[in-house]
C-alpha cells in the first residue's frame, strides 16, 4: 500500500517535490542553513533577500524581535525589525551556486530588492548566473531603512510594474512579485506586477504592527535604544489575513496567476487551507523560527495521509476548492437558520456558554444550578454558535437546522 502521496507541484513551470518552501528571511540566511532545510525535507527555499551593499549598506537593529502573547500562550505572533540580508552580495551568490550544485533537485528562488533599475537588473542577472530557478521581487519588506524600498515600492503600482518589467527583460527566469498586505486592496498592485510581466504572486509579507509596549518605560517593543516602530508582524495571528488576501488573488478574474501562499503556516492543516484558497506554493518562516526546520516532516506526512485517505492524486485537484465558496455577504442564504444543540452527557456544567450567551448574544442558554447543566432555549437561540466556541469541551455543542417558518428570533435581535 502506498504510504506517501505525490505532493509535487508545478509552479511557473518548475517542479517542486512538495509545495513547502522557506520564505525569504533569517531561516534562509546562508548556504549551510538552507542545506539543512533541504535535508529536513523542504521542497524549496526563497533565499534571504539579496541587495547590493554598494547601493545601500544594511545594518540590522537590535533587539529586533517582539512577540504577541495571548495569556499563557506565547508567540501567537511575531514582530520583527529585520532588514534584507546584511551579507556581502558575493558571499550570497557563492552560497546560491553551491546550493544549486549540491541540491540540483531542490528549488532555489532568489529574492531580490533593488533601489534603482540598474540594481534590479544586476541582482537578477547575478542570481540567474548562480543557478537560481526563479526570482522573487521583494516589494514588501515593511521596515527597510532605505527610504524608497520594500513596502513603499509595493504600495506604488507604477513602481511595481516598472521594476517587474525591468527584471523580466533582464532574465529568462520566472518572476514572482511579493505583495505587501499593508494596503486596502492587493489586487491593483498584483495586476500592476502582471502588467510588468510577473509569472506569479506571493502573499503576504508581514503586516505593519505593534505587538507590545513596555508599560513602565512607555516604550513600544522591540525597544531599540529608546525607540521602536510599527514593523512586520507574522505567525499564526496573521494567517486569517493572509488567507483573505490569497483568496482575493485567486478569485480575481483578471489576475489568473499562480500564487505562493505565505502567512502563519505551521501545520499541514494550515498548509492545506492555503491550498484550498488558491495557493499552489507555500512559504514558511515564523513556524521555523519557533520550532525549527523539522516541522516540515509533519506537514509532508499529514498532507500526504490526507490525500491518500481521500484518494487525491495531485494537489492540483484541490487547489482553490474552498475559494469558490467565498461570496459577498449580500448573497448569504438567510432562510437557512440553525440553533445550538448542547450534549447533556458531555456538558461539564461550567456555564461559560451561559455567560457568553447572556452577555454577548441572545440570552438563549439556561443554566440549571442544581444539575449544573446548560440547555438551549430554541425559541431565543439565534444560531450564532458563540456557545460552541467558548465551550471547553470541544465536541459538546453542535447545531441543527430549524424551520425558518417557525423561527421568530430575527425580530428579537
Amino acid at each position, binding site marked *: 500500500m502506498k504510504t506517501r502521496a505525490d505532493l509535487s507541484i508545478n509552479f511557473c513551470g518548475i517542479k517542486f517535490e512538495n509545495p513547502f518552501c522557506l520564505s525569504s528571511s533569517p531561516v534562509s540566511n546562508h548556504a549551510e542553513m538552507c542545506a539543512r532545510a533541504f535535508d529536513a525535507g523542504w521542497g524549496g527555499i526563497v533565499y534571504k533577500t539579496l541587495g547590493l551593499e554598494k547601493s545601500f549598506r544594511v545594518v540590522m537593529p537590535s533587539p529586533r524581535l517582539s512577540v504577541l502573547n495571548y*495569556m*499563557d*500562550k506565547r508567540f501567537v505572533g511575531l514582530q520583527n525589525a529585520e532588514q534584507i540580508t546584511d551579507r556581502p552580495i558575493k558571499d550570497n551568490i557563492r552560497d546560491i551556486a553551491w546550493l544549486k550544485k549540491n541540491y540540483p533537485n531542490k528549488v532555489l528562488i532568489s529574492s531580490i530588492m533593488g533601489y534603482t533599475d540598474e540594481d534590479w537588473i544586476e541582482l537578477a542577472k547575478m542570481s540567474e548566473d548562480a543557478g537560481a530557478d526563479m526570482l522573487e521581487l521583494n516589494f514588501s519588506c515593511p521596515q527597510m531603512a532605505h527610504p524608497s524600498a520594500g513596502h513603499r515600492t509595493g504600495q506604488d503600482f507604477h513602481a511595481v510594474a516598472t521594476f517587474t518589467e525591468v527584471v523580466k527583460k533582464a532574465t529568462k527566469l520566472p518572476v514572482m512579485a511579493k505583495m505587501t498586505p499593508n494596503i486596502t486592496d492587493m489586487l491593483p498592485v498584483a495586476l500592476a506586477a502582471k502588467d510588468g510581466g510577473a509569472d506569479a504572486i506571493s502573499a503576504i509579507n508581514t503586516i505593519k504592527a505593534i505587538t507590545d509596549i513596555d508599560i513602565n518605560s512607555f516604550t513600544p517593543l522591540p525597544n531599540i535604544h529608546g525607540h521602536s516602530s510599527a514593523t512586520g508582524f507574522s505567525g499564526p495571528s496573521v494567517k486569517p489575513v493572509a488567507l483573505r488576501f490569497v483568496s482575493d488573488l485567486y478569485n480575481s478574474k483578471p489576475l489568473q496567476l499562480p500564487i505562493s501562499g505565505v502567512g502563519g503556516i505551521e501545520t499541514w492543516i494550515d498548509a492545506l487551507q492555503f491550498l484550498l484558497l488558491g495557493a499552489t506554493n507555500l512559504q514558511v518562516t515564523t513556524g521555523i523560527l519557533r520550532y525549527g526546520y523539522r516541522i516540515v516532516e509533519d506537514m509532508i506526512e499529514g498532507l500526504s495521509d490526507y490525500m491518500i485517505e481521500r484518494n487525491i492524486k495531485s494537489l492540483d485537484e484541490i487547489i482553490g476548492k474552498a475559494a469558490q465558496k467565498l461570496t459577498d455577504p449580500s448573497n448569504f442564504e438567510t432562510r437557512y437558520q440553525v440553533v445550538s444543540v448542547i450534549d447533556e452527557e458531555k456538558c*461539564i*456544567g*461550567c*456555564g*461559560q456558554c*451561559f*455567560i457568553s450567551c447572556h452577555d454577548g448574544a441572545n440570552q438563549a442558554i439556561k*443554566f440549571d*444550578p442544581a444539575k*449544573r447543566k446548560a440547555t438551549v432555549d430554541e425559541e431565543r437561540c439565534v444560531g450564532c454558535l458563540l456557545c460552541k466556541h467558548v465551550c*471547553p*469541551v470541544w465536541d459538546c455543542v453542535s447545531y441543527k437546522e430549524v424551520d425558518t417558518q417557525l423561527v421568530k428570533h430575527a425580530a428579537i435581535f
Partner: protein
Amino acid sequence: MKKPVDPVKIGQFESMRQPLDLQAAIKESNRCLLCFDAPCSTGCPAGTDPAKFIRQIKFYNYKGAARTIRNNNILGSVCAHICPVEKLCEKQCSVKALEDPINIGGLQRFASEYGKTFALEPLEKSKKNQGKIAIIGGGPAGMSCASALAKLDYEIVIFEKEEHAGGVPKWNIPEFRLPGEALAYDVKNLLDQGVEIRHKSAVESKDAITNLLKDGYDAVFISSGLSVPFKLGLLDGFTNAVDYIAFLRKVKFDRGSINLNGKNVAIIGGGSVAIDSALSANAAGASKVYLISLEHLDELPADQEEINLARLMNIIFKAGSQITGVNAHEKIISGLTGIETDWIEPGKFIPQNARQISGTEFKINVDLVVQAIGTKPGNEVLNFSKALKTKGKGIVEVDDNFDTGIPGVFAGGDVVNGGATVVQAVGEGKKAAQSIDNFIKNRRNSL
C-alpha cells in the same frame, strides 16, 4: 499542575510548599474555566472566593487577587498554605471533568505573596463608632470575627492568653507546613484595621463575661478554642508520654531542648495533628516513628496528601491497632505493647467499637510517646459553663447564628465545632460577626 512537596524541606523545617511563581500562576490561572456558578467559591467555608481571585490573576490583576483573598479571609495567607483544598474548593472544580483540578492553593499562595511583596494598601482602620466588642481568644475564629467587625466600624479588643495571636496555626502547625511569615502577615493586616490585641490576657474567671458586658462591651465572642488534650489512662504519669499540643509547640519553638536523634517515637492518633507530630518527630531526627491508630489506612481522618507525605518520610503505620500495655521503668516508658483491631460495627470509628484480633499482638521499643487523640475546651469555658450551654466534650452550644442564648454572647470556631479546619473557623467568625452586628443594631433600634 502541582509540584510535589519537597520532603527535604520538612527535614529542615522550611516551608514545604512554595508559592507558584508568576509564570506558573499565569499558566495555572489560564486552565481555569471561569465557571458561571463557581463551585470552588461555594466550596470555601470562609468565603475566600477563589473563582474571583483566579479570574483576577488570569487578567493580570494580581494585586486585585491579593485584595480579594485578604479582604474575604483575614487568614488568607495561612489558609493558602494549610487549607485541605482537595476536600474543599479543588474538590468542586469543574476542570476535574477534563483534567486535574486547578491548583487553587498554589494560586492563593502566589496572590497572597504578591500582595505582600508589592505592598498592598493596608486594610481600612475601623472608625470604632458602632460599639465595642470583646473577643476571647485570638485564634482563627477570633481574628476573623474581629476583622469582619472592624470592617463594620466596631471597636475590637481581642483577649489572648498567649504572647502572640494566631492560636493553633501559631503554636501547633509545624513550620514546614506553615511558614511563620504567613501568619505574621495576616496578624499585621488585622492590626492595620485598628483591632487591639491584649496579649497574656486570659479571660477565665467565672464572672468574666458578665464583667465584660458591664464594662462597656456591647457583645462578647468566645473563640477560645480547644486547649486540653485527651490522654490515655494507660500512659498517665509517665514522663516521656506527652500530648501533641506540648510536643508540636516544643518542636516549633524550642527545638534545641529536645534531642530525638536515634530515638524511637510513637504517635497515638490518625488525624492531621498526629501526622504533623510524626513528621515533626522525623524531622527532629527520630530514627523510627510509629503512627498507631484505631482507624485503618483508608479510614484515617488525616488528609490523603498528609498520609502520602508520612509514607514518603518512612513513618511506620500501625493503622488499625491499639495500645494494650506499657513497659516502663521508674516512670519512663521503654516499650509499648499493642494489638491489631477491627470494628465490631463497620463505619463507626470510636474506641468502644474496636475489637482486638487475637494473635496479632506486637511490641515496639519507644523513647517517646506523643498522644494526638483530640482536645477539648479548656478551663475558660468550664468556668463560663455555669451560664453557657455545653455539650459533648464541653463544647459550647450555639444556634445557627453562633448565638449562645445569653444576650450579647456569641461563640465560634473550635470551641463550638469541636475542632475543625482554620478555614471553617474563619467562616464561623465571619458569620458570627454578622450576627453580632445584627444583635447590636436590633438592640439599638429597639431602644
